[in-house]
């Protein structure tokens, strides 16, 4: 098959526009979660696997409960008037 340098054959992993949109949306939603202070289970999993591989991670439900007790543990997030 004649291929010029830089061109990929069909089906060789060119990122589809749907995949790209999903990735961008994922990044955006992750940013929104961080801005409003929402728990990010995926980030917790990644951090847990990296730092404590020997322990099994918390379930989403337990993680959310622990997140809340940490966030509101000494009163809550400081927000101004």
């Amino acid at each position, binding site marked *: 098959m004649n291929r010029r340098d830089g061109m990929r054959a069909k089906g060789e992993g060119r990122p589809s526009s749907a995949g790209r949109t999903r990735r961008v949306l994922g990044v955006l*939603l992750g*940013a*929104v*979660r*961080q*801005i*409003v*202070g*929402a*728990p990010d*289970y995926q*980030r*917790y999993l990644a*951090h*847990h696997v990296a*730092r404590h591989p020997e322990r099994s991670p918390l*379930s*989403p*439900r337990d*993680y*959310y*409960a622990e*997140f*809340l007790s*940490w*966030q*509101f*543990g*000494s*009163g*809550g*997030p*400081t*927000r*101004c*008037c």
Partner: protein
Amino acid sequence: MLARKMRHLRSTILWIVVAALGATAFAVLAQSRGESINAAWILVAGVASYVVAYRFYSRYLALRVFALDDRRATPAERLNNGRDFVPTNKWVLYGHHFAAIAGAGPLIGPMLAAQFGFLPGTLWLIAGVVVGGAVQDFTILFASMRRDGKSLGQMAKEEVNSVAGMAAMVAILAIMIILLAVLALVVVNALRASPWGLFIIASTIPIAMLMGVWMRSFRPGHVLEASAIGIALLLAALVAGQWIARDPTWGGWFTWSGTKLSWGIIVYGFLAAALPVWLLLSPRGYLSTFLKIGTIVTLALAILLVLPQTRLPALTQFVDGTGPVFAGKVFPFAFITIACGAISGFHALVASGTTPKMVTRESEARLIGYGGMLMESFVGLMAIIAAATLEPGVYFAMNVPAATLGPTAETAARAIAQWGYTLHPGQMEALARQMGEATLLSRTGGAPSLAVGMASILGGVVRGSGLALWYHFAIMFEALFILTTVDAGTRVGRFMLQELVGHVWEPFGRTSWYPSVLISSAVIVAGWGYFLYQGVVDPLGGINSLWPLFGIANQLLAAVALCVGTTILIKMGKWRAAWVTTVPLVWLVLVTLTAGCEKVFASDPRLGFLAHARSVVPGSANAARLVFNDRLDATLALAFMAVVVVVILASAREWWLVLSRRKAPAVHEAPFVESAFATGD
């Protein structure tokens, strides 16, 4: 070489153009003697000043004064635990920090200060933030970041001395109480005799609980999803409220008086602090954050699209102190009424809270600390614009208490005509009908007039449609996040009280010991509840006494923060640059002490607490209570002033000791560790 020179020349020309634009805008503002100008000039003056200040002043602070060093690892990098110490993208952190500092303050303060005309508020918002507020936020963020996220109180104790630390803690608790009372008062005045408004706010409680159950049991941690549902339900309640209000039975159930509403909020505050956080506090927090940011963005876009004309003059005669909304001359009271947006001590708590633990590189503190506060000042400018688009007659008819205006539209029109502004009696009735309310007369506290201003701007995008919906949307957004501040603030306040008392009696400090939880929650709620009730029944209108107390307390905390900042700069050897914190400090001390003295000792009974106590006729209705409240308020103001003086003296002593080399400057920063980020990219 030539390319660099060309770039430099282009950049210089650009900045000269921006500065000229800003100067022109200020000139237009200054010369508009009573004529209507376009609100765009206020925006241009503000934005031009902000960008020039950011580009030059904050850069000077970052490079020369704080000497931010990207080679130095921030606590987010060194102590990364995937939880509170997390290196965060600077724009995300900017949004997070802004969402934490922005609240009702930058909206209500400027609306109240519009009594003096739009110019004093505009000038203070712009000059105050550039020289004071943004500098304070940046300084405290920097200081806390270098100390692994220590709080303001801890820094005051370590870098100044324990007297300053204790004073800071007491001041913070006192401010909390006054802040919660005054915000609750704003909500009560907004929802008084407003069945539509009360229905929406009442429905936020079951909506939040539904979100709470969703996020805990049904779909754990899916905050965005639950918030989307919550917002949809909220908007449904917004629309449904119209029918509820019209129905004679339901409408009657949701029409509450001011005192009934205060009790409702007091009971709500206590329950919300007692219930588990996942059920009410946490979902309300998310809901209000989304609504807050969404509304601010919508309003900004609407102002840019509509570009309304001002109707309020630049200066009114009330700069002389005879103001009907609240007593006091433009100096010092314009600078006390507007705190958030210009300089607010409470921000120092946020800047030494979660944000410093999330900064990835030291240089990013400039955008987040300085830039974040600039954005809040912009929100304040939007509130000034919303106020300026109101006709003066309407503005005063809404914001002046009934004791001065009288009970009917006719008496109000007469009173307003005496001040030189026109108001036809039918005008207020027509406006009320347009906004879907029974009456808009003497709806004090700033929120209803802000809602009217916002509704006309937002409605103006599509030719004046849906004004009633926009009005109640604006009321909903204000009331929702004020109430969230109240219930979250009660919880934070109870932790603070437990910690404070725990120093003296250890068991009280155990935060999960139930008796301690109940008692401290009750004390905090009783604290702000008392001032709230006092404000609601105050014949002069609660805003007149409470808002200045709040402003004084807030500026006092800012003075504490600037003292801490100055101390740190001097200890770092940067005493030549310490003017960046001492100049705003001197101004603040001047303003707060003058305002405090006037509120306590002025001979005008509308202005001075003690004068008012003397003017109460003994034996008249509520005489004893009025006198007691006046004396209490006077004591509070004196106590705040005493704390300012104590902290300044304590700090000045440290400065003298260090500068005269009697004491070695010991700076308690975290150790220098080389950053991997700097070498990485």
